[in-house]
């Protein structure tokens, strides 16, 4: 019985281990600009956040010659900038627009799925524990004992004004 349970748990763990790997690779594929080198956290960082609009630095901080030329043109009157140039300047400063940030994703399905799988696993563990770990059931839970306990509480007049014994009719010997 123990070996059978371990096998079941083993297959469940394999499925659980494979799932986050699959989803993380999917997420990595969508992020083309993620770098593998370590980030210097002492310098201002760039971030895309819906709640904090203006990041600590521009998105592109190393500009090639075309972008440098554009930045020079930005110092002049903006009416002279074409629509494409304005968009290019925006994309130098920011990675994603608010519309892009707000795009819904399917992450909630992964989260809910993970929650349910783990809940199920916990349920199995608790069930196994209830059979192999729990001590003997106390005698105070037997129906006969509980009936005697109830009668004793009524005899002692527990909470006779508004509570327990107030609901018992002592003349008729039944609940009110």
């Amino acid at each position: 019985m123990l070996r059978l349970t371990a096998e079941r748990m083993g297959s469940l763990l394999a499925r659980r281990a494979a799932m986050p790997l699959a989803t993380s690779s999917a997420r990595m594929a969508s992020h083309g600009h993620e770098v593998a080198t370590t980030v210097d956290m002492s310098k201002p960082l760039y971030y895309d956040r819906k709640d904090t609009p203006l990041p600590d630095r521009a998105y592109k901080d190393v500009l090639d010659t075309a972008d440098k030329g554009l930045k020079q043109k930005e110092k002049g009157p903006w009416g002279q900038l074409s629509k494409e140039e304005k968009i290019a300047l925006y994309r130098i400063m920011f990675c994603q627009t608010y519309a892009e940030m707000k795009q819904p994703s399917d992450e909630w399905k992964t989260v809910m799925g993970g929650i349910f799988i783990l809940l199920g696993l916990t349920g199995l563990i608790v069930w196994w524990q209830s059979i192999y770990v729990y001590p003997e059931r106390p005698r105070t839970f037997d129906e006969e004992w509980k009936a005697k306990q109830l009668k004793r509480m009524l005899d002692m007049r527990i909470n006779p004004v508004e509570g327990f014994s107030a609901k018992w009719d002592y003349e008729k010997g039944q609940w009110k």
Partner: protein
Amino acid sequence: MSLQKPLMRGMLGKRLRFHLPIAFSLSLLAAIAFKYAVTEPRKQAYADFYKQYDATKEFNAMREAGIFESVRPSEE
């Protein structure tokens, strides 16, 4: 296009002037409601209980049920 100058100061005062009277009156209402829904009926319940309470009769009933250790049920 010229925008209207935004609100620069006095925001906390404005919020308090709106919310504090509401907060105080709702709390007062909650206290009054609790008094008349809970404490008054409870006082009445206790008064009614003790109006018809015979302590000796209750004691003897409890004694016969055998819950006391100082007095055993009256063996007949």
